[in-house]
């Protein structure tokens, strides 16, 4: 009893020790925040500075006036092309995301709504293949794509996302409590076909889960380097991350300002997406881990 009483008192009147501790925690957090932001800040600022300026002082917190000059260097020399990279990445990521979200929901629907013999086995199977390390079997995938002549096309990067086991798992977990089977039954009574019911009734209900999963699939498809780098070797089909690798090789080696500007261009779309959707993204990370 006595112990309990002191405890109650303790967290009503904070001692100096408490405030020192809070100050320490805040300091750690601020330092980590600076560490997260400063590399990108230097990148953006240096993108506006000329190579001689960077050579004199590589760090400046304020932008300079050479943005257009750097832009010219990027556009006129070398093989880096932010616009082409952006376009290609957008096509691939959008396609992959749409397929992954649609077919994962469809597969989850098959598991949740229907009673079929192999259902349980199928779900166990999906859990088992969730962890397959895809990148490791790139050699076989590449050879397959090469044989059918689909290298330097976007299909091998879009179509495989029809089978996204982790997303099926997430969708199934989300659908079970959120989706009542009575809706399906009343749709049947109204004469709706099964496929129609899925498209017109189930999909709208699943929208929040689909949005969360779409963000992550889009970003991970956008950021993927290994497989696109192997499949897409011609200049006009390269994605944004492959464009980044150009910055390491070409004439940019001596054009410091333009490297930073090129990097800024590759990162800018992600910054915009992140600052618009950060709330949902953070919530999505938390949700995914609890459900998964």
């Amino acid at each position, binding site marked *: 009893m006595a112990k309990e009483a002191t405890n109650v008192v303790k967290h009503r009147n904070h001692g100096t020790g408490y405030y020192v501790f809070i100050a320490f925690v805040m300091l750690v957090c601020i330092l980590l925040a600076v560490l997260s932001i400063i590399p990108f800040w230097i990148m953006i600022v240096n993108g506006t500075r000329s190579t001689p300026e960077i050579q004199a002082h590589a760090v400046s917190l304020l932008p300079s006036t050479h943005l257009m000059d750097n832009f010219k260097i990027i556009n006129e020399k070398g093989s880096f092309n932010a616009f082409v990279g952006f376009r290609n990445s957008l096509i691939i990521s959008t396609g992959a995301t749409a397929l992954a979200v649609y077919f994962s929901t469809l597969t989850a629907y098959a598991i949740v709504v229907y009673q079929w013999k192999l259902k349980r086995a199928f779900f166990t199977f999906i859990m088992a*293949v969730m962890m397959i390390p895809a990148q490791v079997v790139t050699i076989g995938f590449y050879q397959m794509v090469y044989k059918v002549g689909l290298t330097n096309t976007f299909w091998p990067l879009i179509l495989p996302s*029809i089978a996204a086991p982790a997303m099926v798992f997430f969708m199934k977990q989300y659908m079970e409590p959120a989706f009542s089977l009575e809706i399906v039954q009343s749709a049947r009574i109204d004469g709706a076909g099964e496929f129609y019911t899925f498209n017109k009734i189930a999909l709208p209900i699943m929208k929040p889960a689909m949005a969360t999963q779409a963000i992550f699939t889009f970003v991970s498809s956008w950021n993927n*380097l290994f497989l696109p780098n192997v499949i897409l070797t011609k200049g006009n089909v390269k994605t944004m991350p492959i464009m*980044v690798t150009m910055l390491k090789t070409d004439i940019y080696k001596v054009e410091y300002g333009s490297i930073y500007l090129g990097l800024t261009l590759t990162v800018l779309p992600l910054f915009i997406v992140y600052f618009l959707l950060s709330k949902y993204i953070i919530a999505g990370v938390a949700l995914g881990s609890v459900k998964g």
Partner: protein
Amino acid sequence: MKRKGVSYAKYGYIFSIPFVVAFLLFQLYPIFYTLFIGFTNLKGFDTALHIHPKGLFYNFKWALTNDTFITGVKTTFLLWICNFIPQISLALILAAWFTNERMKLFGKGFFKVVFYLPNIITAASVAVLFSSLFYYPVGPVNDLLQKWGVIDAPMDFFNDKWSTRLLVIFIQFWMWYGYTMIVLISGILGISPELFEAADIDGANGLQKFLFVTIPNTKTILLYTMITSLIGGLQMFDIPYLITNGHGEPRFAIQTASVFIYNQGFTGEHNYATAAACSMIMFVIIGVLSAIVFYLMRDKDEAALHKVIKAQEKAYRQKLKEQKKGGNING
């Protein structure tokens, strides 16, 4: 007579077809194809497959006795472990702070957003950015260190094995601790508040609550974090590939297994067969390790409960069958 209703079971199969077909074609087939290529001597721009003249397992033997590959595997583990331990430690501490209701912290939401930021940025861009930031002789980091008087002359970070490794480890840590923190926060918030209240009543202090309530009750989520990080970490490619010259320089300090496999298969001689053999070895390593973690991760109580439920179901079905035999359908 019992009237049979419309069976919808077939739609279960129909709706699963796209997934199954895509899985077989794009995931399962490449695994076996990679394995098969491992038995051949496929090289260059050939596509015809011939079993390796020096024996079926020649490439596998070659890989397992190849110093560069073995070093690559060791490097991969080294880089993963050295980033994972500080990453999960910091994430746990931050998660404990952020979920402690007695501590009045400002800007929790802001910090979460900022800590997670590096994770969403293209790893390739991050790698090239850091190779520019640590550029020798005139990069931002050299500039700052000289200004602050830490060093007198610029340092060539990428000429030293350990400074390059530390940098890769730091980048991996920097990109992932925010993600891990958010995952752990949601894990800690899932712990029943009663457990913390009970600890309060028993007079536990903050550290004791962290050690004896928070950590044991987030075991599953810690292991989940570990297994996903392991699978990703053992395939580590973008950062070590792009931060130096693409071959894990200096002196193979950051040549991970994935960088080695990429260079075997997709540069120079395009030696697909050896690359495939190395890939399958990595595949097995990752599979075995995940299985071990998975086994440790399974909830023993839940598994036992599942067994009981199954036994009950079986007994119930048996009963039903007997009733049916007796002609009592409506019962």
